[in-house]
């Protein structure tokens, strides 16, 4: 609570202290502008990061689904080979469960193509085995080799595997988004430090007079910190609003569109945007504080 109190006190500020430091003109406008531009960029980096995260999660969910083993064998050997394949699968690391599909299930799978009346008994159908992987998954090539050795008619089909590289791409993209946000925050800090240093240098005389009449460093620093922090907050709020508006204009997420249309923010994630101006204010506060204390230390 005391933190909140000091934040509120800081924001309300000391009107007299604020007045003692003359308007800092372009440095402050520079701060507002760069905070706005940076906030705008952060909105997109955040959206990108969250969208990539959503994709990575969805795709890796799909990966966790089943693989299939298909057994094509003469009718006489079918049952034996199926049993053998199930034995292999049960002793394979990374396989959670394996189950031969019943006739009815296979009929249901085929129904969309051949209709419900299909006389399955008349057809020489392969036997399907549904394999559920554990979270870590199995070694597809190893399993294929073992099956080839023990069950000549078995074919392993782990079709979902092609998405693996996509998942890692999406994860990298998410990481990239976060790295961008950190870099933007650092760049904002650097810019505000430069602006604050310029303001402090331009006001060396003012600072000297204030010191002469007994102002503490913290009092002087506060006047500058408050100014830059509030401007950064305002600028970033504007930039964030602008960025949010731009996001709204993007086409909304749809199943077919995949990645590109899923770039917007969803649900509660919109509230994350509130954090952007706060982050900007914190960065400005720290940068100005550092600059002010460094400058003040060098004065008598």
């Amino acid at each position: 609570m005391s933190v909140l109190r000091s934040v509120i006190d800081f924001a309300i500020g000391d009107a007299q202290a604020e007045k003692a430091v003359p308007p800092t003109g372009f440095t402050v406008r520079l701060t507002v502008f760069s905070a706005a531009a940076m906030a705008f960029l952060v909105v997109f980096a955040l959206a990108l990061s969250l969208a990539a995260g959503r994709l990575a999660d969805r795709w890796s969910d799909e990966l966790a689904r089943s693989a299939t083993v298909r057994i094509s064998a003469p009718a006489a050997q079918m049952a034996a080979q199926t049993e053998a394949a199930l034995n292999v699968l049960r002793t394979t690391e990374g396989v959670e469960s394996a189950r031969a599909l019943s006739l009815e299930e296979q009929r249901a799978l085929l129904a969309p193509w051949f209709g419900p009346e299909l006389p399955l008994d008349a057809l020489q159908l392969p036997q399907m085995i549904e394999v559920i992987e554990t979270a870590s998954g199995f070694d597809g090539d190893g399993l294929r080799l073992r099956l080839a050795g023990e069950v000549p008619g078995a074919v392993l089909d782990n079709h979902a595997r092609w998405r693996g590289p996509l998942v890692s791409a999406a994860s990298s993209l998410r990481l990239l988004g976060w790295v961008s946000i950190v870099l933007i925050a650092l760049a904002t800090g650097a810019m505000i430090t430069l602006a604050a240093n310029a303001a402090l240098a331009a006001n060396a005389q003012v600072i000297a007079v204030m010191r002469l009449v007994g102002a503490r460093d913290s009092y002087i620093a506060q006047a500058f910190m408050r100014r830059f922090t509030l401007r950064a907050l305002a600028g970033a709020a504007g930039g964030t609003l602008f960025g949010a508006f731009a996001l709204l204009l993007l086409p909304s997420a749809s199943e077919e569109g995949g990645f590109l249309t899923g770039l917007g923010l969803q649900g509660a994630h919109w509230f994350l945007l509130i954090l952007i101006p706060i982050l900007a204010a914190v960065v400005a506060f720290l940068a100005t504080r550092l600059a002010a204390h460094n400058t003040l230390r060098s004065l008598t």
Partner: protein
Amino acid sequence: MIETNGKLRHNRLIILRSDLSAKAVRQKGRKLIEFERVAHSYSGGELFNEVSLRLAPGSFHFLTGPSGSGKTTFLKLCYGALVPSSGVVRIFDDDVRQMSRDDIALARRRVGVVHQDCQFLDHLTLRENLALPLTVSGHEALDDDANLKELMGWVGLTSRADALPPELSGGERQRAALARALIMSPDVILADEPTGNVDWEMSQRLLTLLIELNRMGKTIMIATHDLGLIRAAKNHVQARVLRISGRRLQLAGADL
């Protein structure tokens, strides 16, 4: 060691009903500012050395010497703007070398300094400038502060209250600088050439103000090379005259 005879008189006026802080100092000890074998040099060379001095409460000092002899430097040592090259300077019994920047800031609220070049904040009105020491030490409600009004009347600047410093004449600036030095009701007043660019009449008025302050118990040190001013003062106040000469601080004698 030059001993100064501290002479405390009762407050005749109530203009600056200070004197809580002055009492505190009296209890704490009789030393306001103390120099012990102080030497100071800039990159250009040594200005003075072996300077020992004790400013007793209520004393009145003049500090004189040729231009460039180190008067301003001496005063800066007195209010912690400089740290001596060697020796010890104590302000209110604290060694300047041991004081933090905040300690120095607090000490300055008890030492009124009239700068040689009267530094003001040019974007603030005269009233705001005079109130600046109050502002920076966290006082509020300045506009109806009776002290401030009284003080402005005392230095004759009431009508200029809303002027900006660049609009003031040299004499007005110097009176304003004195008023600003007094607003915190300091124990010590250090004035660097307070009559530097005013005519004789005005310098007499300023001197009268300072003498009056001394009668109220303030400790005064005035750096000046205006010997006429010193002679004029000696008729009204028991003042000691220090002179920086030959890199030493000497007590000037009857030759003045």
